[in-house]
């Protein structure tokens, strides 16, 4: 069984991947033995991204057979071609920020109204802290001029994803290394270049 990994315009893909022609683009797939787990598929994505200028990756968590993927692609060729053109040479840099420590335990509330008041104050504080963090990251990313950016806040943390050109990724990381300073109270992890996982929307509504 072959597992679908993503789409590209290049005809030559690194082994053990293979390319199946699918209209004006190629479906990248790999044998199940090599692409059995989500992390196997992500590893193959990274291998492909080293060789292929453009890769529209399928979600690594999803295991889809190549036959099914071919049918799926045939039904939406125009959208896929548009997405491949939009992502041409695109790579993703991700900035993940999480609070360094758990917030200090609150003293026992005097009653329901007091508990609600404290909770509202805590939420307000968190929102302000996130806003300050967003501003810090925004300043650090100012000179990068990414082609696109996405933000994803989860819980107390924040993730910022930047779409940059394949050729510019190393320089963009270096620039972040120079310009990004630690933000008090936050732990920041900058990673990349990744395949453009957060920029793959095809304009479909579920």
């Amino acid at each position, binding site marked *: 069984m072959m597992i*679908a990994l*993503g*789409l590209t315009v290049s005809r030559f893909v690194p082994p053990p991947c293979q390319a199946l022609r699918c209209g004006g683009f190629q479906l990248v797939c790999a044998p199940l033995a090599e692409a059995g*787990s*989500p*992390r196997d598929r*992500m*590893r193959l994505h*990274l291998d492909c991204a080293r060789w292929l200028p453009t890769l*529209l*990756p*399928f*979600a*690594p*968590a*999803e*295991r*889809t057979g190549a036959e*099914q*993927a071919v049918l*799926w692609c045939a039904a939406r060729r125009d959208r896929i071609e548009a997405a491949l053109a939009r992502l041409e040479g695109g790579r993703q840099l*991700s900035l*993940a920020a*999480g609070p*360094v*420590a758990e917030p200090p335990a609150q003293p026992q509330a005097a009653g329901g109204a007091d508990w609600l008041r404290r909770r509202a104050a805590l939420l307000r504080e968190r929102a302000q802290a996130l806003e300050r963090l967003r501003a810090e990251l925004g300043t650090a990313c100012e000179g990068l001029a990414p082609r696109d950016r996405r933000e*994803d806040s*989860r819980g107390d943390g924040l*993730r910022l994803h930047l779409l940059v050109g394949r050729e510019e990724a190393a320089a963009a*990381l270096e620039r*972040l*290394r120079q310009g*990004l*300073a*630690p*933000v008090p109270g*936050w*732990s*920041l*992890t*900058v*990673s*990349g*270049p*990744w*395949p453009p*996982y*957060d920029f*793959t929307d*095809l304009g*479909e*509504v*579920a």
Partner: protein
Amino acid sequence: MADPPLRFVRPEEALSSREGTLVELVDGLLARGVVIRGEIWLTVADVELVFLRLDLLLTSPEALAADRPFPPASPLRPS
């Protein structure tokens, strides 16, 4: 051990790490990308915990109505 205040990691490093923050970072990306059928394995540290299969209907209500095999019932009229 506390996370460092600022660090840069390569994707390969994050992928092979067992450290909580990096595992979480990779897990956050695993569900991103093009989703064909909504077959999702929820994983933590590469252990598949939950499997969900969601068949999505990607269409507009108008297109759905046009594709229906039977026309909508017409109101009853007196004969």
